[in-house]
């Protein structure tokens, strides 16, 4: 069962990476340790550190406005690409996509 689920996890991450325009995918835990990443270590650690704080801030903002609300997703659109962060209690799933139009 666990092994099957692990395979599913693998498959999910692989599928995300194969989508059009996706530059990199990474899974980071709350301490900034990259569990799974397709980019190099230094970039991943940089993203992890910076996005962790930003996600915490965004989450606290949402909850301050309405305590019953919660942050589900964070999207940062920049000139070059879009950074998408899906937060969890312990982990962060970060995907960098270049929406090519």
């Amino acid at each position: 069962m666990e092994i099957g689920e692990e395979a599913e996890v693998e498959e999910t991450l692989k599928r995300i990476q194969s989508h059009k325009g996706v530059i990199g995918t990474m899974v980071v835990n709350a301490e900034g340790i990259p569990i799974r990443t397709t980019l190099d270590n230094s970039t991943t650690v940089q993203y992890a550190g910076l996005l962790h704080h930003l996600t915490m801030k965004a989450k606290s903002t949402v909850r301050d406005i309405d305590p019953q609300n919660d942050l589900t997703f964070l999207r940062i659109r920049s000139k070059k690409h879009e950074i998408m962060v899906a937060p969890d209690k312990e982990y962060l799933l970060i995907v960098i996509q270049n929406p090519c139009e």
Partner: protein
Amino acid sequence: MEIVYVYVKKRSEFGKQCNFSDRQAELNIDIMPNPELAEQFVERNPVDTGIQCSVSMSEHEANTERFEMETRGVNHVEGGWPKDVNPLELEQTIRFRKKVEKDENYVNAIMQLGSIMEHCIKQNNAIDIYEEYFNDEEAVEVMEEAPSAKTINVFRDPQEIKRAATHLSWHPDGNRKLAVAYSCLDFQRAPVGMSSDSYIWDLENPNKPELALKPSSPLVTLEFNPKDSHVLLGGCYNGQIACWDTRKGSLVAELSTIEFSHRDPVYGTIWLQSKTGTECFSASTDGQVMWWDIRKMSEPTEVVIMDITKKEQLENALGAISLEFESTLPTKFMVGTEQGIIISCNRKAKTSAEKIVCTFPGHHGPVYALQRNPFYPKNFLTVGDWTARIWSEDSRESSIMWTKYHMAYLTDAAWSPTRPAVFFTTKMDGTLDIWDFVFKQCDPALSLKVCDEALFCLRVQDNGCLIACGSQLGTTTLLEVSPGLSTLQRNEKNVASSMFERETRREKILEARHREMRLKEKGKAEGRDEEQTDEDLAIDLEALVSKAEEEFFDIIFAELKKKEADAIKLTPMPQQPSPEEDQAVEEGEEAAGEGKSEEVEEDLA
């Protein structure tokens, strides 16, 4: 010494109550007023006394010393691994990761997050929700707004003894940096202790220059190499050429030998387009234009003397104060001189005499700036005396367009790199004028007072939006112009080129007319007698003066004779026939008193 007071009291009297008794007032001393003392005082009337009912307060100010702060960031290189895992050991990290991946929490979390993420990714791919709508139509709005410009930043010379900012150069890549050359151009009046440093400023940080360049003598001009942005070329006040590499530091990398350099401050240095990217040339008021290769700065590779009589005499040479070179016309260059003449030269001419192709009459004073129009290189802009003029290479007798005479001297000018009809000028009273001659021809489209002191130099950034101007106290101001003045208007190129052509044609017609008239005059003069022409030519001041003298004396003698005749009639008194000057003048004045004799007197005097 101890002062001791012995207090004696009988023991039986201890604890006894005090008995107070009344007694009369005793007069101890009576000091009478002494009226004699009053003599020593003077009564003051009126007396100013301040009366205030409120609480007296005082005001104090305190200013803390300026605290210098620097912002630095810290970047983590490695995540927060638990104590038992050594991040450098690949095995341990892999083991840790595998352990996490087996964790149930992890699996559930990823499944859930994965599905949300996929949804958003697909969304992104389906529609670009952040695209720019109506991109094309924005161009129309821009034309309606009034031209404006605002100051973005000011860079002040950090030195205490202020020097003028004499030259500016933008960094070739991305224009994030500005090199400013500081020097004092007053002849031999540079204050003692003036630093000879010039700076490279980063636009983000106006408090402190990014790099200081330290030459042996102050720099008059400074240019970035357009091919290699680390290399800078500077022309010094003592005539030497210096070269820096910013990677190597602030000391001079290459310096030309003083024997072969210019003898006057170097007023123009420009990099040439060459395969090696190391060639440059410089001009100075000593009348020479020298070509250099920065790899070998001991000697110039070529020297041309700006002698328009084509005799290569340094004594006749005109001092060059501005230099122009356009990379699209690599063999031609132009020199603006101190005497006001503009010389167009060809570098590839066979003999040295042929290097000077033609001259333009220029201005009444030194030509401080010279630049070809980036869109129409046949037309160039010059600035000098109190006007700015636009010339065409075809019309050599006069400029095709010119501004009116201003109240202040013009110091520098530049074309806009994005609009062919726009140029900028700076003046000695600190104003920056922006001219747009498809919009208004008589006055600048926009006139801004940048600072109170004179502005010495001006440089436009390649995007046409940012302008940097340097002032007499070393303050460099960065201005941004409104987009209307920096984006190409719809029909502008055609309108500008047709204006240039029309004015060139007009000048050509005028030139032809002048030539015809001169020929006619020559023809008339040849028709007359030669002697007469000689006489006519010989009518100079002396002939006029002697003629006037004769007339004057004739009048005087006539009057004297009349007086003699009268005197003889009344009393026989001898009178001097030869008049002394003053007497004659007086009598002339009394007797004649007409406009003619006054004129004659003036001639004599």
